């Protein structure tokens, strides 16, 4: 999403088109290019403590985790105003018991 520069000056983002005259940053997808994102999501675990409050074990609560990846277009910059899900992908991921 382009972060338009207010009146083409400084570090502040403009509100509507009437204030926008530049771009400070852009997280959109450029034409013809592949953009890669990398995420690491922890499984649900519970730590086990000894008498000295030290973590001695990390118990896996469930070895299956459902991953849901959504590509959102947020025309107004948030999910309250006219959000649009461009892509929606779900997959179950497992680790050994």
């Amino acid at each position, binding site marked *: 999403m*382009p972060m338009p520069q207010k009146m*083409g000056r400084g570090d502040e983002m403009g509100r*509507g088109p009437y204030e926008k*005259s530049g771009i400070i940053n*852009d997280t*959109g997808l450029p034409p013809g290019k592949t*953009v890669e994102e990398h995420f690491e999501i922890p499984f649900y675990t519970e730590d086990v403590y000894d008498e000295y409050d030290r973590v001695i074990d990390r118990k896996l609560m469930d070895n299956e985790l459902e991953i849901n990846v959504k590509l959102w*277009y947020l025309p107004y910059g948030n999910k309250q105003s006219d959000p649009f899900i461009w892509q929606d992908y779900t997959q179950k991921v497992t680790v050994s018991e």
Partner: protein
Amino acid sequence: MTKTKITMMAVLACLASFALIATTSFAAGVGKDGTIVAKKGKATTIAELVAMYDSTGCIDCHEDIHDEWANSAHARSVYGTGRTAATMKTALENGVLSWAYSGATKPEDVEVDHLMGCAKCHLPQLADATDAVAKEFIADIYALMDAYRNDDEEKFDEMKDTLLSLNINCLVCHNRMAITHKWTDGYPQDGAVYGSYDGEHDDEAFPHAKVSPIMSESIFCGQCHGLGPNFELDNPTQCATAYGSYLWAYTAEGGTETCQECHMEKSGLGHDMQSYRSTVMSDAAVDFEVEAYGAKWRDGSLMSPKAIVKVKMTNRTGHAIPDG
């Protein structure tokens, strides 16, 4: 005053007149007096502006194309989903009326120039209207918003219909905006529709068909789906920048397709030009690949299981996403 002095003054007056005529003639360009607005005169009401670019006659022979267009955002370029009109009110109040040097402090002060930041693309024909139309336009947007707030359905529908009557219709594209380089190709003439051929056109009001040299070129769309800040305005705005992205990030990298090829031909949507809200367009626009797998990260003596997720997104369009 002597006879000589009077004669000299008369000669100077004539030279001044000649210079004025010559300057005016050059600025106007040859054939500018044949445009729709030149022939009909500037509209003084919204109804006159709608009548000036009335395209209902096109439906008789081009009903399918009309129906396609009617489903597109071009058919509601001012009203939008209601949000476009509301945003114009915001632009007026937070922008024009708040700026120290705009010359407008209340809605009644608004002139055509104040609205062209929005109207340049949402209603380019507003440039062919008097300031009275600008005031009527703003009054109608306020009336729409007030009716919405007061649950006055009748007034809301009346204002909505008025705003829906202002749009990017057949004549706006196939006449008014059909030529970008007017000193090279001539000014769009009243009585002519511009497209792919020269010849006769079976319409009393528009009996001539003429070639628009840009109708199938991306520059045609770029007139509105633009470059960046509109520096020709006294207070530049920046809305759509798709044509800038198309030129400098797509064609500059070897892209060769036009806007029309993707949005009209390959999509099969014709004049129902759509963007991301159409699955035909959104599905074709982005390749989306996800790879996810589990792994156990060793955190000292502890195992921390995690899912590793790799996402690849490839923009297959000829412009940045999002843009417009």
